[in-house]
């Protein structure tokens, strides 16, 4: 499955990675999907939870090496 948007946030620290995610989501249509790459550690522990708190849906979250692939569906 290919997401509508993709952003590599590896190396982007908290909370800038979440701020960037929010800006990408705010420029998307409801129902569209965004795939992001997050580092292990604080980014993967924080960003998906914050995204969900705003009502978006995490469609999948997979570890690949020492990074994570996260697909978000905009509410």
């Amino acid at each position: 499955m290919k997401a509508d948007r993709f952003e590599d946030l590896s190396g982007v620290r908290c909370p800038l990675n979440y701020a960037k995610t929010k800006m990408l989501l705010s420029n998307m249509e409801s129902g569209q999907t965004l795939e992001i790459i997050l580092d292990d550690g604080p980014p993967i522990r924080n960003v998906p939870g914050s995204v969900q708190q705003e009502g978006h849906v995490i469609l999948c979250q997979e570890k690949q090496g020492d990074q994570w692939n996260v697909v978000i569906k905009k509410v």
Partner: protein
Amino acid sequence: MVQLTDTQLDRYSRHIILQEVGPEGQEKLMNARVLVIGAGGLGSPIALYLAAAGVGCIGIVDADVVEISNLQRQVIHFSSDMQRPKVESAAEKMRAINPDIEVNTYKIYLNASNIQEIISGYDFVLDGTDNFATKFLINDACVMAGLPFSHGGILRFDGQTMTVLPGHSSCYRCSFRQPPPPDAVPSCSQAGVLGAIAGMLGTIQAAEALKFITGAGTLLTDTLLTFDAKNMHFRRVSLKKRSDCPLCGENPTLHELEEGDRATCDLSA
């Protein structure tokens, strides 16, 4: 389409990650035009926080120069600014905090004949002045122009503030009909003010401006918030828009701005 640069996303990240602000709210702040009247005790924290928040265009009005007795509470001015125009000293600090913003300075005394021109074009006004005549002038001019504003005042250990959305919520005149006679107000040099309460009240006013622009939360409309910092008591007093208000009521009697008796006091400012 919200377009913030990486630097802006970083600078404003603590706003952007707030659900009630977000990238959209930050963009509203960056497009907003806010006027701060007074670069004194209240105007100092107001101007600093609005600049830091990235409010795109900030006007600041004050006719005075910086004096040593101001420095106890007017935190935007430094000892090295003595005798400089307050608006110039303030604008320099605001631009230093945030080079992205535009600052307009007005080194003048507001009066009935110049206030309308100065406030026009702004989205929100903050009253950080030190005398009743100017507070009434700001209320009247903003209500006549339909311009939302924040009223604020401090004295000794006490502060009070309310936010007015003309046509929708009670104005200053709904509750306080006219300025008190100048001799009924404590003489400023005898009254004093605890410096930190200027920060307490000014930051509440700044928060109201940011909330108004972003649409976050509920404003201090139809509500007078007062505090007594000596005992740290806060109180909310409900106010009503009065149908018999001489300014915003059903049969207004005030149609033109009045030139008040500006018993100047270098207190709140």
